[in-house]
């Protein structure tokens, strides 16, 4: 199979370039990550992140034939040749397919991604009905791979001001949790021309999420909460 891969090593390259690779591999039943690891056996200078190889850690997120996704759960047979691989768009490239995630995590951290409840903890669990718990479905499963935020034009233009889909999905994960008592502070923090409202419902995030989550819907729910408390 033919590959067309973005290469850049600041140690040795003046500028990034695209490199072609040929790989003798039978695509049936194999994932893109399997092919990349075979390519790395041939050329150990090809660098990428990897860990779980089953779509739960988010390490090997990259731009695959123009669309963000995880190499470990993208079947080789689903890809048109030459398979063009680039680093996630919009973030600084450290090397080859590895991007600097600092800005992404800064935004994630900015929404206070932890449960806030200042009541003294009870002896056993804080009760939550199955229906209340069901509100967290589609929110807590995020693996922080950054496919969504790096597919979002609003995040490209204002990565330091707009929280981005991944961060906002997590913001709503805590707003939706009946055990969390900081809704007011959380909404105050997002009531700003950029942090929340730069989402223009383009829905690229929904399109690329490898976990089939819906950040746009979560953002809509936050906007709803915002409006409801104003009227």
């Amino acid at each position, binding site marked *: 199979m033919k590959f067309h891969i973005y290469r850049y090593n600041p140690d040795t390259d003046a500028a990034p370039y695209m490199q072609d690779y040929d790989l003798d591999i039978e695509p049936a039943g194999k994932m893109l990550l399997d092919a990349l690891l075979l390519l790395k056996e041939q050329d*150990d200078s090809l*660098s990428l992140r990897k860990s779980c190889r089953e779509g739960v850690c988010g390490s090997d997120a990259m731009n695959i034939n123009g669309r963000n996704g995880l190499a470990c759960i993208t079947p080789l047979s689903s890809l048109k040749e030459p398979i063009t691989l680039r680093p996630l768009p919009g973030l600084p490239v450290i090397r080859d397919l590895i991007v600097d995630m600092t800005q992404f*995590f800064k935004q994630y951290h900015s929404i206070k991604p932890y449960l806030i409840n200042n009541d003294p903890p009870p002896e056993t669990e804080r009760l939550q009905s199955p229906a209340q718990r069901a509100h967290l479905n589609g929110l807590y499963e995020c*693996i922080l791979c950054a496919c969504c935020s790096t597919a979002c034009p609003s995040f490209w233009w204002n990565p330091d001001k707009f929280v981005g889909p991944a961060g906002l999905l997590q913001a709503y994960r805590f707003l939706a949790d009946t055990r969390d008592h900081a809704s007011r502070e959380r909404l105050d923090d997002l009531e700003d021309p950029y942090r929340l409202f730069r989402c223009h419902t383009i829905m690229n995030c929904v399109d690329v999420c490898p976990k089939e989550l819906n950040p746009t819907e979560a953002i809509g729910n936050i906007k709803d909460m915002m409006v409801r408390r104003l009227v």
Partner: protein
Amino acid sequence: MTVAKRTFDVVVVGAGGAGMRAALQLAQAGLKVAVLSKVFPTRSHTVAAQGGIAASLGNVNEDNWHWHMYDTVKGSDYLGDQDAIEFMCRAAPEVVYELEHFGMPFDRLDSGKIYQRPFGGHMQDYGKTPVQRACAAADRTGHAMLHTLYQQNVKANTHFFIEWMALDLIRDEDGDVLGVTAMEIETGEVMIFQARATLFATGGAGRIFASSTNAYINTGDGLGMAARAGIPLEDMEFFQFHPTGVYGAGVLISEGVRGEGGYLVNKNGERFMERYAPTAKDLASRDVVSRAITVEINEGRGCGPYGDHILLKLDHLGDEVIKQRLPGIREIALKFAHVDPAISPIPVVPTAHYMMGGIPTNYHGQVVAPYKTGPDEVVRGLYAVGECACVSVHGANRLGCNSLLDLLVFGREAGRQIIEDLQNHPHPKPLPADAAERPLARLARLENQQNGERVAEVGNEMRKVMQKHCGVFRFPELLAEGVEQIKQVAERVARTGIGDKSRVFNTARIEALELDNLIEVAQATMVSAAARQESRGAHARDDFPQRDDQNWLKHSLYFREDHRLDYKPVRLKSLTVESFPLKARVY
């Protein structure tokens, strides 16, 4: 070459469940803590745990920690230390409630309490009937737990060093541990992390096997560093094979699937577990199920054109239950086994999963080794928790859903113990002059190696040897050959070379350093397995099919130097209750 140095109260190596639970304890106590992690914390392998975390909350069935303790002792095939097991099972409800207060999104019962499901080996009333003891967030319990712990660490302002790889331990003449050397992956810079306490939470080493449920990062780094620093590795022969890895891919299918009512069938459509474990059936302990599957395959009742796997059937559960309770499994089955589990069974095979052995510790997380006065002398300044540690609560076999519990209980306890110990050691000891010598020598060798063997090739050879010679059933000739072959692979590891010599995010160099660690674990595992002449838990010998308490009720200790083995007694005395006496294991 001078190496930069930073000084902390504590350095934690590894940011999985155990490392982060410990870090939280330490950060909240106001200590200056550095947490080193090869990957972003939420990418640690804890994220892949599926089925649940064990605790006798009794939310569904009547339950108590004595029954949990009994199941754990029995599951460990009596090689577990009963003091540590009591400590863990007694603390289980407390740490699970704590986790819930941290924001863990557990599934719920109609009463609003935490949902619990049955899991292999967990029984009511000292082994009579299966009990619902596994607290679960669908089949993403590890993911939910790891993120919850990370979130709490963000709140506590824990100082993470992300994408830093620890290289070697620093010990002085007295044998005290004074910190670690580490490399920033992005820049290739080496730095000394000096600390009054060093805690290893580096996880497992499943990547010594060709077919493994483990992530690529599970390369036994803590064990490699410990072995090179002269610390023994305990009970390494006991490597658990999970009964249900996806055939061909190795990706894990949670035991929770069987907890929800899934079961195994052979090529005749027969539910064979009833023959091997009449009471617990598919919910027997993992080593029992893995061995049963292997027997079925070996006796010609395996499925597929090569008769080399078994089927896990869950279509009778219905699409609703599968989507609600097992959504992750459904995803895995579709992607890696190419079947919809609501329609077709999933092809599975026992797959290397969890290392029961590790760096020997007591139940406070302090590393212990024989030195002058006895087998359990504390190594000052060094602690270990999680899969890289051997506490030993898992004994010869890990009971399902006890590992997430182990991370929380001993992560927290090691944190507490470190806080206490540091009160007696207010100042760091001076570093030895050669503190960074070993890692710098390893890096220099890689830099200067001419015509070295490829890392990937030597690594593949190691995994092939381990898979063939140290699998579910172990045969005398295969083991003896395996010991020789793995030593030969080790000699090749010492001569690996890399093509890429650049400094920036050089993953070729990282993989070479990881192989240095893996080969230590592989040798320890093979040598310990060849020596133990009995079948116990996860270690099944073809030539010694029975458990031999007379001669082998003891922990093995492997020393890297000359591949020497020593043994120490199992701690049969529990803390506050009567010990469970040895008896034959039936399920």
